[in-house]
């Protein structure tokens, strides 16, 4: 048995200007890109707009361009196009890797880069049918009074679970936004809020009502920078991450594994994709098991897996450490250094 969404009118503008005019006329409207998140949520009556503005006819928002030292990705570029793009694979392989690990092939064909960054946060008590949620007295994030994950509080822990955000965070991506009020540019880091209810849209840099993401701008990493993405999920064929981790090293001396700068970001374990702090002591250090231990400690301080998925939070927490080790070993494997011999699971 299926449950229809609340009825809405669908608009299909052919240009950004037309989209802005529609948004001015229907301020409660939501944008629809590939629909692989939004249509599911409409069917579950998690989102109930009277109007939906489908973006797929706006051709100029599709495609990837390389100009100067920047990669520009149109918000409507499909995830599979990002994963398969030769320049992305060559200049920013971790982004191609993360995109290639989103969902399964059909969904990657439909889902877009913009939708991936604007993804609604996820929780086992929220991503359910209306019938299911009603039987469970709903929850704080939608229609209800309490949070079933942390019942005493007034905070929502639903996790942002997009795969490409952590890699883009480590590459200092910026977002080009436009609304009927005007255009602006924000960093990806200031885009997300800390409360799972509105992870996108609470911060000054967050998506405002009616605002449209046009393009993602990413400065290309210099030679000597390496980045990998590691993902834990239930079924490798299709599932959202239980934990996702991006690690970037800008080598001071690659052969000696001496770190010039190191950065790490997590997804699926907090209401927003989160950069891990406290890594400064590793500048100038060697990427060895002591460095791995420091990265693990800091990652555990940042990642706060809660009971938002079917998998046990303790398991996800333990796996944060494992993914750190795996990412470090992959970065070191290319160098074939002694870290390889030390890594117990290699």
């Amino acid at each position, binding site marked *: 048995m299926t449950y229809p969404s609340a009825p809405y009118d*669908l608009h299909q503008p052919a240009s950004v200007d037309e989209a802005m005019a529609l948004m001015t006329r229907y301020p409660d409207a939501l944008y629809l890109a590939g629909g692989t998140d939004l249509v599911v949520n409409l069917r579950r009556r998690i989102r109930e707009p009277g109007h939906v503005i489908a973006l797929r006819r706006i051709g100029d928002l599709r495609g990837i361009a390389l100009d100067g030292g920047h990669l520009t990705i149109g918000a409507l570029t499909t995830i599979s196009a990002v994963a398969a793009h030769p320049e992305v694979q060559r200049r920013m392989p971790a982004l191609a890797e993360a995109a290639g690990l989103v969902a*399964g*092939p059909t969904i990657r064909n439909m889902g877009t880069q913009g939708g991936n960054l604007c993804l609604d946060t996820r929780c086992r008590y929220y991503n359910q049918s209306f019938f299911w949620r009603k039987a469970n007295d709903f929850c704080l994030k939608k229609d209800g009074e309490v949070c079933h994950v942390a019942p005493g509080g007034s905070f929502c822990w639903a996790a942002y679970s997009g795969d490409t955000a952590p890699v883009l965070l480590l590459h200092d991506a910026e977002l080009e936004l436009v609304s009927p009020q005007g255009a602006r540019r924000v960093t990806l880091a200031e885009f997300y809020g800390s409360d799972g209810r509105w992870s996108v849209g609470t911060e000054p840099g967050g998506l405002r009502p009616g605002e449209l993401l046009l393009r993602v701008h990413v400065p290309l990493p210099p030679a000597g920078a390496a980045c990998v993405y590691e993902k834990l999920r239930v079924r490798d064929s299709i599932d959202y991450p239980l934990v996702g981790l991006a690690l970037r090293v800008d080598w001071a001396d690659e052969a000696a594994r001496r770190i010039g700068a190191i950065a790490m970001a997590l997804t699926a374990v907090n209401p927003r994709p989160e950069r891990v702090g406290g890594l400064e002591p590793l500048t100038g250090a060697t990427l060895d098991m002591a460095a791995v231990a420091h990265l693990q400690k800091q990652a555990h301080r940042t990642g706060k897996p809660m009971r938002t998925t079917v998998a046990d939070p303790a398991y996800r927490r333990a796996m944060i450490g494992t993914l750190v080790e795996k990412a470090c070993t992959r970065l070191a494997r290319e160098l074939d250094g002694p870290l390889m011999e030390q890594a117990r699971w290699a």
Partner: protein
Amino acid sequence: MKTLISLIINGRKREEAVGGSELLIELLRDRLGLTGTKMGCDGGDCGACTVLVDGEPTLSCLTPAAAVDGCEITTVEGLATSGGLHPIQEGFHLKLGSQCGFCTPGMIMAAKALLDKHPEPSPQEIRAGLANNLCRCTGYNSIIASVQYAAEKLKQATRARTRGGP
């Protein structure tokens, strides 16, 4: 608010008035009687609703009907010809790639999209190509064998055609 759309479904041109929140799967199944396409999960998880939109595999449960205005849609009903089953269907039949059959139309359409792009896929490529499609019965191995059978058969047909000349 209804929108008039024109599209080609399985080679036949149609005009339909569709509602804003009407999904492609609802148009296909409930109004056009093309019930080969299945609604499994109503949420992107299972792939039973996979159809081809301009040749690309697409989940019809997540696609607004109005969004396919001007597109060419192929459903499982569009594969067999008066000459008999399509080689992919034949593969699923002979290699027992179908048990309860619920996932089969989606599997076949995903396999069609895969073989159109990669006529000679390795077993690993078949797994990756069908990763969006869930089967609760077969254990997948017979599905991979079915697609391999189809790839071989299609290859022979292409060879025969090129040998035969125009």
